[in-house]
């Protein structure tokens, strides 16, 4: 797993915000499209692509895409 493909998959969960605008440092809750539904989509994407069970609390305590990536990484190695 690498951060570039992760950011790409993360960006795909948004329909309005252009994918190119996402980087590891993106504060993903600070755009108009972020909602409980995008949160569920990110959790489902991580489950589907990485077989990792991210929780609502994991998402709540994260600010950047990289924060989420690091949680997924730690759960993959666990």
């Amino acid at each position, binding site marked *: 797993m690498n951060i570039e493909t992760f950011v790409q998959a993360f960006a795909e969960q948004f329909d309005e915000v252009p994918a190119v605008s996402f980087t590891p440092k993106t504060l993903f809750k600070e755009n108009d499209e972020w909602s409980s539904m995008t949160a*569920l989509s990110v959790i489902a994407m991580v489950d589907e692509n990485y077989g990792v069970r991210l*929780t*609502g609390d994991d998402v709540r305590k994260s600010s950047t895409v990289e924060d989420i990536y690091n949680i997924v990484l730690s759960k993959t190695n666990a």
Partner: protein
Amino acid sequence: MINPFSLANKNILVTGASSGIGKQIAISTAAMGASVHITARDTNRLDNTLKQLGDGHHRHYLADLTIGEELDALTDSLPNLDGLVLSAGIVKTLPFKFVNHTELDTIMQTNFFSPIVLLNKLLRKKKLNKNCSVVFISSIGGNFIGAKGNSMYSASKGAINAMQKVIALELAPQKIRVNNVSPGMVRTAMLENTTAFSQEQIENDEKNYPLGYGEVTDVANAVIYLLADASKWVTGTSLLIDGGFTIQ
């Protein structure tokens, strides 16, 4: 006065009795005098429920209700029943875009096929006595409301309520009644397993309930009514218990 809610001299099967709502239904129906037959997959947790049932002719049966042979074995080992409570169920939160055949199948197997097939097998084997009461544990989801991420679960519960209406009609000549309880959110292991929502989201959701989230006894008490002769004129109905959530 004879207690209209007494369950004395009734043999009642409760599925999903190792945890949460089903466990409380087993405990409450035993307290109302029933001989309770409990089933689930986890031996330790099921044993634990059995221990809490107190004196009486209570028995437990290990079975995975999604496996045909285990359903057959369960059906064969049960006595004739005066009550059947179908509480075994699972939940999986996924936005509809992520739903796929495998995930949908898993939920439908446990929440829809297994209770329906168990009821069907019990009927074929003539294990349901005249005046038997069948109670599905359904949900407000799929029947009274929709919640984002809950499409598969909603489908499984909506299917129960739809099918129940016809089963109730067909079994009425035998005086077998078929109803469901449709609860709103109740704090059980199911909620703990729904990890897709943060604690903060759950606390905010509870604020939408005029009477707060429910307790397992709230559901068990509704089930006692539907199992007892008190409800002998009630069939084909959905008993909505949701702390006022859906009146808003």
